[in-house]
């Protein structure tokens, strides 16, 4: 039984037909062409598929597409329309990521954190990204960049 749903994706209203058993992650990637949420474990363990649902981070592999009818979804493609956020700028400047597969999810987790807590400590950042697995970096370079970004916004950056 197909459902006609409409939700806001990165600021744009997107009507689409989905089956009840279509998972949000798959719909974003294959039907809407938004590829930054990644398929990592498909059981909510790794955080690679993180998106913001009404501003809160969720695992898009644990959400049915029909559930987001009428809601707002943001991916890393949609967090800032005029360049990069300050956090992204600092993550680049400090070369925090390695393979980068976890990066979209971690960036969104950081964005959510800063929205709720504009001056997070390193411990806050560790807690905020603890559901996003990264096998390359040992995490601390990411934590340091997020903390640095909120302390001293880079001159070229946009808003956090």
């Amino acid at each position: 039984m197909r459902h006609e749903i409409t939700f806001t994706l990165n600021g744009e209203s997107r009507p689409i037909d989905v089956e009840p058993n279509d998972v949000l992650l798959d719909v974003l990637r294959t039907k809407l062409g938004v590829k930054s949420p990644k398929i990592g474990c498909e059981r909510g363990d790794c955080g690679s598929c993180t998106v913001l649902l009404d501003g809160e981070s969720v695992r898009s592999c644990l959400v049915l597409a029909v559930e987001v009818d009428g809601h707002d979804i943001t991916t890393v493609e949609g967090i800032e329309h005029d360049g990069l956020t300050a956090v992204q700028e600092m993550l680049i400047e400090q070369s925090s990521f390695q393979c980068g597969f976890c990066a979209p999810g971690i960036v969104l987790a950081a964005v959510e954190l800063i929205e709720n807590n504009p001056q997070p400590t390193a411990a806050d950042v560790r807690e905020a990204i603890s559901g996003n697995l990264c096998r390359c970096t040992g995490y601390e370079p990411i934590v340091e960049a997020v903390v640095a970004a909120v302390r001293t916004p880079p001159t070229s950056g946009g808003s956090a």
Partner: protein
Amino acid sequence: MAIVHDFKYVRPERLEEAVSALVAGGPRARVLAGGTDVVPWLRDDVITPDLLVDIKAIPDLDRITAVDGRLEIGALVTFSDLIASDVIHELAPMLVEMSHHVASIGVRNRATIVGNLCSAVPSLDAGPALLVYDAQIHMAGEHGTRTLPLDEWFVGPKSTKLAPAEIATGVTLALPPVAHAAAFAKLSRYSGEDLAQANLATLATADHDYRVAYGAVAPKPFRAAAIEALLAGRPLDGDIVAAARSLVPDAISPITDIRASAEYRTHMCGVMLERTLRAAASRLASDGPPYPSHLI
């Protein structure tokens, strides 16, 4: 990996409609709230419903309310809501401590505490935490509403007294009438997200009433009556805590699995009892560890 099984989906906006949908859907209809258990179960064909009834559009189920020494938590309240709630911080901050131990933020933003009770996996963190508050769980069904004490709700692993076509609508906590404090500890393999190998909530009151509830070391979470009876009415000292620890092996029935051996779970249930009792007592005296803390 796609979900292969087909099902229908409805999102009613009134509780009565949801119940009607479940009744009409028969035994192969299922409630969907946060979905953090339901969606992986669908993917793995652990459940194969014909109908999912999404209750997230039903108003008022997302409320946290304090009335007359009771704390009411609706079926749509997530673990993140608990962490963010001023009411919870003021009246039952141990629930914040427990919630911090549940998965990670991306899951806590979605997973509900009542859903955790409905999933009823033996490792659930909400079970022991609510049991020490003598929680009651409320259900709505075809023939109206009913309420059960939480310790009667759990039947066994993944099994509860929820009837087909019934919706768990919320839980009510009875706050002790005297000053009290509580603590929650969870045995996990590391500091990051993990399923409990054992968990424990303790609550201590100013008149030396103690409540102790374990999870993940029996088919369902439970109050450790013998330990509570031993402690009742006595201030905590080294001897009484040691005596309480000695009762732990008989109080629990842990299994050995890939997450932990029965031997380690048993040992740690003793350690956790001592540390949470001391934390609760020191919190009661206002010099304990802050909420939330990792007590082991």
